[in-house]
């Protein structure tokens, strides 16, 4: 390797973008700026000028100050200790930052992503003499209670294991050695590094074949997301996007949760940071934080770190995927990320594309979402997946803007939040007419095997009624509901039941906050059964007004808030049947 010049000097500072000369650099090299050694990244090379985005505030920095090239690209430290952590956009733990610099985030402070001193109990599963390759499991560490962190052979290393030891180690201790084909020895540690902008390699990408169960009726029934799939939640402000995302993080059945607050509000991030540690995992009864990594980069933290935060998050997600886990990654919001790209692009004076966004916006979005998926990891037979749920915040609620449009091109599930529904306090305010999922048919066999064979039929019927309602409402707008034929008045009634009892869900109610697939199914079945029986009663001459007044319908609603849903719903089915029969 030729001699590289590692120290240069700054020649221009304009906000978060600075220019240096006299330094050899490659794209995305990590550099240190000025006497305070602020962290930055090379984002453009123009002849001998190196353009750098700085992750920290640049006030007071002068031309002539030094610039150091670390020669590495922006990487995350991967190893035990990630779970339960709370990071900023470049993997600095926020609690550590608070200890070092107080309540406000100042600059020039360095902090490693992992606790360097903590000793972990490592149990080797590989043996001396084993031949190993990238991704092979060497052993495991119980990272948090019940969560086993697999220690894997780092990328680019393969050969024979010449030594491996169980025992108590820090992430920096050497746990063994690998000798490769060229007789070169590689040290093994509990931690490894990975550059955030590069997807981690896998053996094979697989088709999604099972749902991500969220416990939220509207998502599970009508707009299902597959494990390894990608969903977009666009929502104009005030539509309850944040609550929906937090509900998903709390309740979905992924094994590991990575939550990225990208350009989030400080107080809302605090809500996440204070609430998560108090949440118990419905499956294990342990704190939910035990399997969660939080990344918090609020809107007033440096813009370049915001740009990096989604990459930091997805790299951590991929790392756990490689251990054979199902990981759910929530990014709130990717619009803030796109805006960070725009802001940096405009400071670089690049030719803008649509609405000032850089022309490479769609490429970057697609590349990011493509890192989701169900995969066969390199080192294990067990499949892993990364499911990405990206929130989009279209300005003015206009879905035709570039970020939403480019996101929709690559996502298969679309949960359209609607401010109008939120105004009516219909929560979660998912618009059932504009939302869609392309996984419904792919996942049908799974639901048939694991819930009930009629699942797809029930969800299809509910959707059909809702579609009919939309058409009928247009007529009602003109002539009033009394003018409709009786049959259609009944359809409106069924649609109302679906909206109120299936689609609406109270995130703050202890029971209604999570609903099993069985319960969701029974609610759908009860409503549809009423609809069927009422329809046939109508055909036998019963007046619709009588049917609309049936009292036991409201009991379906009670079931939402009650543990004994089967008793109530079965009871409601019987009572409704009896009432309808009494009318006929």
């Amino acid at each position, binding site marked *: 390797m030729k001699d590289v010049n590692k120290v240069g000097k700054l020649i221009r500072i304009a906000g978060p973008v600075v220019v240096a000369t006299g330094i050899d650099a490659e794209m995305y090299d990590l550099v240190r700026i000025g006497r305070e050694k602020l962290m930055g990244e090379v984002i453009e090379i123009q002849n001998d000028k190196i353009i750098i985005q700085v992750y920290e505030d640049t006030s007071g920095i002068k031309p002539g100050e030094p610039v150091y090239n670390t020669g590495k690209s922006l990487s995350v430290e991967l190893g035990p200790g990630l779970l339960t952590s709370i990071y900023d956009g470049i993997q600095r733990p926020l609690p550590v930052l608070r200890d070092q610099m107080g309540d406000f985030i100042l600059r020039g402070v360095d902090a490693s992503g992992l606790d360097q001193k903590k000793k972990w109990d490592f149990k080797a599963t590989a043996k001396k003499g084993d031949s190993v390759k990238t991704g092979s499991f060497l052993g495991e560490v119980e990272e948090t209670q019940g969560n086993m962190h697999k220690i894997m052979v780092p990328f680019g290393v393969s050969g024979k294991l010449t030594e491996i030891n169980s025992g108590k180690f820090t992430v920096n201790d050497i746990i063994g050695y690998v000798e490769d084909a060229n007789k070169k020895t590689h040290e093994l540690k509990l931690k490894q590094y990975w550059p955030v902008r590069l997807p981690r390699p896998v053996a094979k990408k697989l088709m999604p074949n099972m749902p991500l169960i969220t416990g939220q009726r509207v998502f599970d029934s009508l707009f299902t997301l597959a494990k390894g799939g990608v969903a977009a939640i666009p929502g104009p402000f005030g539509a309850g996007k944040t609550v929906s995302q937090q509900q998903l993080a709390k309740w979905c059945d992924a094994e590991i949760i990575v939550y990225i607050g990208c350009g989030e509000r400080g107080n809302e991030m*605090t809500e996440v940071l204070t609430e998560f540690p108090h949440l118990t995992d419905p499956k294990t009864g342990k704190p939910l934080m035990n399997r969660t990594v939080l990344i918090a980069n609020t809107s007033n933290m440096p813009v370049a770190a915001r740009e990096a935060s989604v990459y930091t998050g997805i790299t951590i997600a991929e790392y756990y995927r490689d251990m054979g886990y199902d990981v759910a990654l929530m990014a709130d919001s990717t619009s803030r990320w796109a805006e960070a790209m725009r802001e940096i692009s405009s400071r670089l004076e690049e030719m803008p594309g649509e609405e000032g966004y850089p022309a490479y916006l769609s490429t970057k979005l697609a590349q990011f979402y493509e890192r989701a998926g169900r995969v066969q990891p390199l080192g294990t037979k067990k499949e892993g997946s990364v499911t990405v749920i990206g929130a989009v915040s279209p300005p003015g609620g206009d879905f035709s803007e570039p970020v939403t449009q480019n996101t929709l091109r690559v996502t298969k599930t679309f949960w359209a939040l609607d401010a109008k529904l939120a105004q009516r306090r219909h929560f979660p305010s998912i618009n059932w007419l504009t939302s869609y999922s392309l996984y419904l048919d792919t996942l049908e066999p799974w639901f048939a095997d694991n819930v009930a064979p009629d699942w797809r039929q029930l969800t299809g019927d509910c959707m059909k009624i809702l579609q009919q309602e939309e058409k009928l409402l247009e007529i009602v707008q003109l002539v009033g509901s009394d003018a409709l034929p009786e049959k259609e008045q009944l359809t409106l009634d069924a649609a109302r039941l679906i909206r109120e009892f299936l689609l609406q869900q109270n995130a703050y109610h202890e029971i209604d906050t999570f609903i099993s697939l069985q319960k969701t199914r029974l609610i759908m079945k009860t409503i549809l059964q009423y609809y069927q029986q009422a329809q046939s009663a109508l055909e036998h001459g019963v007046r619709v007004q009588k049917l609309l007044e049936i009292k036991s319908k409201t009991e379906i609603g009670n079931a939402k808030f009650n543990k004994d849903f089967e008793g109530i719903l079965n009871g409601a089915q019987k009572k409704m049947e009896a009432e309808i029969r009494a009318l006929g």
Partner: protein
Amino acid sequence: MKEYKTIKDVAGPLVFVEKTDPVGYGDLVSIRLSNGLLKNGQVLDTSEDLVVVQVFEGTSGIGKEAMVKFLGDTIKLPVSEDMLGRILNGAGKPIDNGPEIIPEKKIDIIGAAINPYARQQPADFIQTGISTIDCTNTLVRGQKLPIFSGSGLPHNEIALQIARQAKVLGAEEKFVVVFAAMGITNEEAQYFMADFERTGALQRSVVFLNLANDPAVERLVTPRMALTAAEYLAFEKDMHVLVILTDMTNYCESLREIGAAREEIPGRRGYPGYMYTDLAMIYERAGIIKGKRGSITQIPILTMPGDDITHPIADLTGYITEGQIVLSRELHRKGIYPPIDVLPSLSRLMNLGIGPKKTREDHKNVSDQLYANYAEGRDLRGLVAIVGEEALSERDRRLLKSAEEFETKFVQQNRLEDRAITDTLGIGWNLFGPIPKQELTRISPELKEKFYKEAKQVAK
């Protein structure tokens, strides 16, 4: 300190200086005009051969003869507890003919981001005495809740009423008000000052005034000065601070002006691409820090150009702040004060501040039901226009009437009326009185049991 006489260009609010020694980004600049007058500025872009300075007082009178001095320090605000009761200009200098403020210290006005991990989650209900805020869009201590208004709407009255009446139930201490005016007219300023003086609020206020005829660029520092003062009072002097910023639209116009003068590539409607980050650095300076007794609650006011809520200023603000209070021209025309349209209004932190022990157990349910009824009632008005009221069902007619009463009884109140939250909830229940019990679907059966009967009687 060296003075340079190397001004190359002057364009709009910007001065371009050549051949300087290295100058720090964001440093304060002092410019001496040929007639001896001094102007202040700040470094926006620095390189070895050219430094771009934005001049706060406008560039009139600056020529090639002017002398430029780089002060080697970023902009700082001198702070002390004596600021309370004082009126300062947009750049933080006293303009009330009072004595100079002897600073306890000087603080950088840019302000650092609060570590999200150090934040304390807001939890205390603030009673503003305005029903549409207290019940349906509750303000919580540490929140930032803007008022989205339009020209000619009474946002100033509402802001003053909040400043006057805001209190945390059970806590004796009153809010300290930091008031920052950006580009408001002299008349508006007089109105504010008169009210502050009349109610004695001035004694516990710090006022920053940048009027419409003051330099536009100065507006860029005014909110930062105000928030620096607020942070000092809240986090070092344990006070609960209410910050009112008016009018953020003028601030954004100034931001655009600077962007255009620098020939930056404009974003939506000509506003700079970094406006989101810039606004976030203002709005995010609200909240509570763990272990500190004080707090900052922020009420920014902005007038939506053309009443357009999708305008970039309103839109970006809504993405940063925790909700918004939206004023409606229609209600205003109907003579309803405060003309707060609850449907597009929202408080994202509402659930943290309400409920048993905080307000009352029925608060959330009442609010949800009011929303649902009013939304439906408003929709029906459109229908009535087509088919006439006779064609409506009985239920629809009830809702229509309920929407009307909601506006005249619940929304409408006197400018001096300080409604307790229990009274507000009582009015809500009275509106439910004429509605059959089973139609109140947003209210739990136990609460209906407890409150509905009385409401029914009042209705009769």
